[in-house]
């Protein structure tokens, strides 16, 4: 699927600070036509975080560390950073979890 943020790139990186502000990101994220999608991805991390914290508590699994979401033509990896920040990597290819996590570092 080659639409939106992945129209011209194989992968897109966004790094968020502890206050959820964008610390760094690929240029494409800041293009006007992609800002809404970029904001949606940041919102998606919040959406997933609520569930992860819920799962962590109810199943006694420890703190959440990452989550990958795989769908047709795209995979999104959200990773919690040690400094309270968060990393997001969006890829066209479906990568193994280990590889996706390495790329999110």
């Amino acid at each position: 699927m080659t639409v939106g943020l992945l129209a011209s790139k194989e992968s897109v990186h966004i790094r968020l600070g502890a206050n959820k502000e964008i610390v760094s990101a690929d240029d494409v994220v800041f293009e006007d036509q992609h800002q809404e999608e970029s904001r949606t991805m940041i919102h998606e991390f919040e959406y997933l975080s609520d569930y992860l914290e819920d799962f962590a508590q109810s199943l006694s699994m420890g703190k959440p560390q990452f989550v990958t979401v795989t769908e047709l033509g795209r995979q999104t990896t959200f990773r919690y950073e040690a400094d309270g920040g968060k990393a997001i990597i969006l890829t066209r290819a479906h990568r193994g979890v280990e590889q996706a996590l390495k790329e999110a570092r």
Partner: protein
Amino acid sequence: MMGLQSPTQETLARLLADLYAQPGVCGACLQVRDTVLIHDLPYSDDRIDSLAKRIDRLIAGYENVGRSIWQICAGFEKYRLLILCRSNTRLSILLKPETDPALIAGRATRLLMEVEIPTEAAVPSAAPAQSHAATTPLPVTTAGENGIGREELEKLVTGLLSRVTGSVTASKLIQRELAGKNGSFPREEARKLGLAVLENIPNRGKREALVSEFLNALNS
């Protein structure tokens, strides 16, 4: 597919047990929408019912915006939670943190294909895996009736194979498998052909991951 036989709780329990052939699996839960069909996770049934409802809401949130999710893998300090989705069925697997989810996903996807539940089907009562009392048969569907064209199949398999091998090699492998076969294939035949090509990937982890992706794409 389960053929003409509907899967009973015993069959489901056997299928879940098959997941344990892969090291690192701590338990699994199979649900249709928010109703648990069977589970062997080390938690109470009440807690699992609650988990199943939350997982369904999580997936529904994506479906409501037109995103059909195949897989979610969440990592925690003590475990990984792998959630596979197929139609209205979800399979959640609890893994040890050092386990590669790709190795489990291929096997789990095949399990999901065997127990595919029609959307309008009545959902049977939940039962823990250890219980052999419930034998309510579950309805199953047959494979999709629509065929897939050679060109479409070739494109799908080439896209997957080219991630792990050169395009020339990928093309040769596909042409060899599809030699003399033209037109449209029934889903089952397309599945066999695709799997036969992907069988050439020597790395087990990569092979399992691509097989999983192939099966999802073929049936989406």
